[in-house]
């Protein structure tokens, strides 16, 4: 069974001194501290290869940190007695490449983990799936296969698939980067609504419009380090570090 951390942290997510080194030489993440409160939306930005994905993937242990502590909802992830599958069920993850299961229909994609992990009955799982599909705006696609959907629709199914598990946290890794421009909005709209409903979210994205509209805090990462964290409008208007300024000079115009 999962074990609780002894400290009485109020954070939903807590990264303390987290580092991740690949192949002994690639320092992807270096000594990162990040606290995310319940209901908070944190947007992570930074140049390509700066370690954004790795930080995100440390939160559900798709990458195991080489150093540091990670707690999610009070569970210490790196404690060997923690049931990591149990924690992962509470942490939804949306990928750049959608990663829908191509051999299953949309409905089966959304019911699989509900039934196997949550132990829900078939009818119960279908009911939840249809509710989540309606929420992301494509209930009519329940019986389609992923390949029959547009990129935007696939990503919305991926979001519905995660939400069907009733997660406490949602992680997004560049959810709109693989989409054609006209499909970006339909996915961001779903995410905005989710944020307004109080979901705890950590979002890696280059969509500064989304950051302005939804983020409580913006974190700028460069070379594996969190350079700056703060309210987005503040960081946009008045970056305190030269590296942050240089980055925004490049992407904002």
């Amino acid at each position, binding site marked *: 069974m999962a074990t609780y951390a002894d400290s009485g942290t109020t954070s939903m997510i807590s990264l303390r001194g987290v580092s991740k080194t690949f192949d002994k030489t690639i320092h992807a993440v270096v000594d990162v501290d990040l606290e995310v409160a319940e209901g908070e939306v944190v947007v992570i930005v930074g140049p390509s290869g700066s370690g954004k994905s790795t930080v995100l993937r440390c939160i*559900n242990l*798709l990458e195991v940190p080489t150093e540091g502590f990670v707690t999610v909802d009070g569970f210490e992830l790196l404690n060997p007695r923690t049931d990591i*599958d*149990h924690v*992962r*069920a*509470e*942490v*939804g*993850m949306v*990928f750049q*490449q959608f*990663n*829908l*299961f*191509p*051999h299953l229909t949309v409905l089966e994609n959304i019911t*699989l*983990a509900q039934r*196997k*992990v949550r132990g829900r009955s078939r009818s119960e799982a279908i009911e939840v799936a249809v509710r989540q599909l309606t929420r992301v705006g494509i209930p009519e696609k329940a019986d389609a*296969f992923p*390949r*029959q959907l547009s990129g935007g629709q696939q990503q919305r199914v*991926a979001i519905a*698939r*995660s939400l069907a*598990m009733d997660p406490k946290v949602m992680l997004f890794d560049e959810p709109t980067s693989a989409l054609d421009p006209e499909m970006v909005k339909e996915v961001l709209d779903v995410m905005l609504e989710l944020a307004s409903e109080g979901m705890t979210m950590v979002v890696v994205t280059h969509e500064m419009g989304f950051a302005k509209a939804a983020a409580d805090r913006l974190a700028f990462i460069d070379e594996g380090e969190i350079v700056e964290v703060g309210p987005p409008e503040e960081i946009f208007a008045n970056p305190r570090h030269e590296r942050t300024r240089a980055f925004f000079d490049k992407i904002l115009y």
Partner: protein
Amino acid sequence: MGGEVATKSTRHQTEGAARVRDEKPWWDTFPWWGAFIAAVLAWMAVQIITQDDYALAWERIIPGLSLTLVATIEAFAIALLLGLTAGMGQLSRNVVIRNIARTYVEFIRGIPMLPLIFTVALIIVPETSDYVNQRLDAWFGVTYKLSFQMRATVTLALIYGAYMAEIFRGGIQSVPPGQTEAGRSLGLTRRQTMRSVVLPQAMRAIIPPLGNDFIAILKDTSLLSVLGVLEITQRGRQFSASTFKFREGYFVVSFIYLCLTLGLSILLGVLERRMTRDRKGER
């Protein structure tokens, strides 16, 4: 290229490619080899039906068909289990399991089939059966005696299991890692992710080569003849040796194998085409 204006075509081909294809005459693309083989088989069938010597050979040899088929199916089934186990074993996180699987695959693949059959049937089984039977008798009160047919079948399975291990391993690795990550992120266990997400997708890459192995096993059951198992080849040998009608004997043996293997590969082709048709449009 050409000066004429292309007529509006619904094909999504470039004009040049379309023209090259269109200009190929029918006899260039016709499967002559298939027609030729069909003709040879028909001719062989006529010989067997019309000539007494061939008919006699057929009568003596065809009873071996069931043994050949049974051995094929048994060897294939056991090899499937061994292959899946060893294939997944090679991908295991456990260093011991990984190395046992790898040792099995490399070891077996390095020995030709014939000496391995002799080794298992004439050395390993006889030398271990006393000990194994003693244990079995002590623990469960049973003993066994492996027939030569079963010894050879198991050897075939051992060999093809090693080949299949590579097929399974390759199939599993052909599934993008994002699929596993998505499964694990949803809270599915390693095993659940393998069963519900990875293996079903890996089957696409696994089934066609497994079909080829089935045909290969069918042909290799002819090696059972070296242990005197009365399958098709052995019956052909016996017929030829006792009547000195080598031509008739091996003619019939080849005819039977050809019918089986060609029939199976046509079946496999249909299956494969159906699978690729289903896959169309998938990214």
